[in-house]
């Protein structure tokens, strides 16, 4: 088996349809690391004791971290029942000036590991770490904390597979049978109690919270339940409590439209792809009729493989690419090529999504099925079904949740958060998951909050702009007074790819290299 073929199909499937959206944050394509690899978890010394602390290393970070875990009952109502370990890692402050404080960075997904992303958090929070610890906790069901991973049938080949024919309910049932867990216990509220226990164990009086994507829900719950232990909160790419994540389908459509608009309004892109909207419609119509079958090469191994390009894979690849400004820049070219029946760029983008960004899909389902599915009003359902990927997303989730059977969270779960904590809300105008309007919604009953919209950012403003400096400033002063959003408006747009190689305007001499009449010599 080559590596890409052992990729998790059901994961890829669920991912491309019901992801709440951390994949962009967690850097499918961050500048240095274009792809995530599984994390090496080396412990310098064995953690034998129940609440053992040890130094450890994580991938991409040379520093020695402090790692440990607490053991908690999986079900708080059955303290003698199954015990699970909640792992955490502390990136120690360079100069510990505030030993009673730490920045707790909460990962997205739901289902991503915060510790796996330690290097990313370290990179953006360099300034914070100069004087304060950064605390990362693998939320229950993710990473090292009793992960609810769903490994799919290894005989399914993700490239050749026709995912429209996949029985998601059966896949989910197979996964559930393999899991040694009560999947009803992996929701946000149970995890919140774990977070608080970790805080207490480590002896921090006050936490500064940074939540990204789904992590913002955890941060908001923390604000509601334990406000006395918080000093400041940053919600980046916020999912307001009032909002079911299933509304994401509308956000995705919006991001598609913004992509088309941006290309239309950019001279070079408009010149190169004058009919991009038509190209997109053409491919959608074509693939809706029947998947495109072809012989291709495996993106990783180079071995010949049949490729079944379905509408789901096509839209999923585009959707994931919209998370990061750099992959987004490739989309007009990829869509245009697809319209010309060349699916190689789409295949390349699709291959990037196959590892699922390390999402624990079982935990993902536990959260979404318990906290979002029941909020599906008829109106939202109708809107979602009418959107590009909404129908598939609802069908997939419906089948998964029927198997997962997580009791619905109580109605007050969806109440807006009332708080006077200094809260910074960050939204990216181009965000394909949590659009700026969601940020406005989150503000409803926050009395000390500011909402900044970064015009050129997608999902995860702190990862793409000066947003991380604003967070550092907030943590330092615990006040929103002096935060200046001007730097977010700096023009950091990425130019669109005009062919498979360049983002710069193609000079006449180079662009027409295949045309017979092309001039032989370049301009000096």
């Amino acid at each position: 088996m080559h590596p890409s073929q052992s990729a998790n199909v059901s994961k890829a499937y669920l991912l491309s349809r019901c992801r709440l959206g951390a994949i962009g944050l967690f850097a499918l394509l961050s500048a240095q690391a274009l792809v995530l690899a599984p994390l090496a978890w080396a412990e310098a010394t064995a953690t034998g004791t129940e609440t053992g602390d040890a130094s450890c290393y994580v991938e991409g970070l040379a520093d020695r971290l402090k790692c440990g875990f607490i053991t908690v009952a999986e079900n708080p109502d059955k303290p003698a029942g199954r015990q699970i370990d909640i792992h955490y890692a502390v990136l120690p402050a360079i100069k510990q000036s505030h030993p009673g404080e730490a920045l707790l960075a909460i990962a997205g997904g739901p289902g991503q590991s915060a510790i796996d992303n330690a290097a990313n958090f370290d990179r953006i929070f360099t300034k914070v770490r100069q004087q304060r610890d950064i605390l990362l906790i693998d939320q229950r069901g993710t990473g090292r904390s009793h992960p609810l991973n769903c490994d799919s049938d290894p005989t399914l080949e993700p490239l050749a597979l026709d995912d429209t024919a996949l029985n998601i309910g059966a896949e989910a049932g197979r996964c559930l049978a393999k899991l040694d867990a009560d999947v009803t216990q992996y929701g946000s509220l149970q995890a919140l109690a774990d977070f608080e226990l970790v805080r207490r164990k480590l002896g921090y009086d006050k936490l500064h919270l940074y939540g990204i994507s789904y992590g913002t829900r955890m941060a908001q719950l923390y604000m509601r339940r334990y406000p006395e232990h918080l000093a400041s909160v940053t919600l980046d790419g916020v999912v307001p409590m009032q909002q079911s994540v299933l509304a994401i389908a509308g956000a995705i459509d919006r991001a598609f439209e913004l992509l088309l608009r941006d290309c239309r309004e950019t001279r070079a892109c408009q010149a190169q792809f004058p009919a991009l909207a038509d190209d997109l419609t053409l491919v959608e119509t074509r693939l809706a009729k029947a998947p495109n079958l072809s012989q291709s090469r495996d993106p990783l191994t180079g071995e010949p493989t049949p490729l079944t390009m379905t509408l789901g894979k096509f839209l999923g690849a585009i959707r994931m690419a919209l998370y990061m400004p750099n992959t987004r820049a490739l989309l007009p070219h990829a869509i245009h090529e697809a319209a010309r029946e060349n699916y190689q760029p789409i295949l390349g983008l699709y291959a990037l999504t196959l590892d699922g960004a390390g999402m624990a899909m079982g935990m993902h389902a536990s959260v979404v099925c318990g906290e979002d599915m029941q909020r599906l009003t008829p109106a939202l359902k109708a809107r979602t079904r009418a959107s590009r990927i909404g129908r598939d997303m609802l069908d997939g989730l419906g089948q998964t949740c029927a198997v997962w059977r997580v009791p619905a969270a109580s109605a007050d779960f969806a109440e807006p958060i009332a708080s006077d904590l200094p809260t910074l809300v960050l939204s990216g105008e181009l965000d394909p998951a949590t659009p700026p309007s969601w940020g406005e919604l989150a503000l409803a009953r926050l009395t000390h909050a500011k909402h900044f919209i970064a015009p050129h950012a997608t999902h995860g403003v702190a990862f793409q702009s000066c947003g991380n400096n604003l967070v550092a400033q907030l943590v330092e002063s615990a006040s929103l007074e002096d935060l200046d959003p001007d730097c977010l408006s700096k023009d950091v747009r990425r130019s669109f790819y005009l062919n498979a190689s360049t983002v710069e305007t193609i000079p006449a001499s180079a662009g027409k290299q295949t045309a017979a009449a092309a001039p032989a010599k370049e301009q000096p």
Partner: protein
Amino acid sequence: MLSKLLTLVRKELLDAARDKRSVMAGLYYAIGTPLVMCALFMVLIAQLASPEDLDIKISNADRAPDLVRYLGNQGINHSDSEDAAKIRLVISQDYPQQMAKAKSAQVTIIADNSDEKLQTSIRRLQAQLQAYSSEMGSLRLVARGIDPRVVRSLQINLEDQATPDSKGGMILGIAIFTMIYSVFISGMNLAIDTSAGERERNSLALLLSHPLSTRQLVLSKIIAVTLFAMLGLVLILLVSKLAYTLVPWQELGFSISISPQFMALMLAIGLPVALMAASMQLFVSFMAKTFKEAQSYLTMVLFVPLALSMAASYNIAPDALQWLPVSGQQQALMAFIKGREIPMLQLLVSSLATLALALALALGMERSLKSEKVIFGL
């Protein structure tokens, strides 16, 4: 017997207190050194760090607007100011042509890499260009349906065993050196004054005419000088503890703090060294014929222990040094501050050697003070 000794020590200290200028000179060192060093480090850190917003001069920016905006997002911007021109980035004229054909496009950094103030910034610019290049390369592969992981055949992990304290080891080595130095320097003036000086003032002979043993005389002088040396050490520790916290070490990626435990250890280890320093300074001063001569001899003799300490602090020492006086103690202190195990045996041997040396010098002094040649400086 003991009361005579105490009286003598009191007399020495009283003498020392009377000549404030010369004696305080030694203590000024203990107070001033950490302050001066920290001020220097503050300036140095500010100079070595790359400014958050780095201005450089970019030529042909219109050939690569995407690259220029990418750099801008990393805080590297074009500016026409004179300062910015110290680092120039020249984008080649044929950049778009080369890019469009998937060839390497040339960019050139022009800067003086020997200028310490620029080095970090040059490295930063290089790293960002490299990051842009690899991102672009990865996306070119994606556009061709290839997983970019194929060109990343090695994943290189580094597991750094250093602690935040040990990363500052070099600086701490220098700090410990200044502390040991203060042990030698703080009592030096007193040592000269109480030996060669006393002889020049002709009060030494007077003192010896009293019913006192030479041993009591020598002991009282050693104790007085040692007390001054230790006073210097206490002062430099206190001032260091305050001053070092003011320097923004974190910008260099480590922290330096003088912990109470370290201070206690330093004082314990410093006592034998102070005894040895006192004996040595007194011995040499008595050997000299005049005050002036004592000063020059001492400066020369001081070089030996300080060279030992310096060698240990820069880690250029051969292993043998950890058994010797001064350098052995210094290495033990550095091991402690780096969070490693203290080499107890070596510390014991070097401390005993230090005491033995002090004893030998004291006995030598006792014997020499019985000779009239020495007493009258003939």
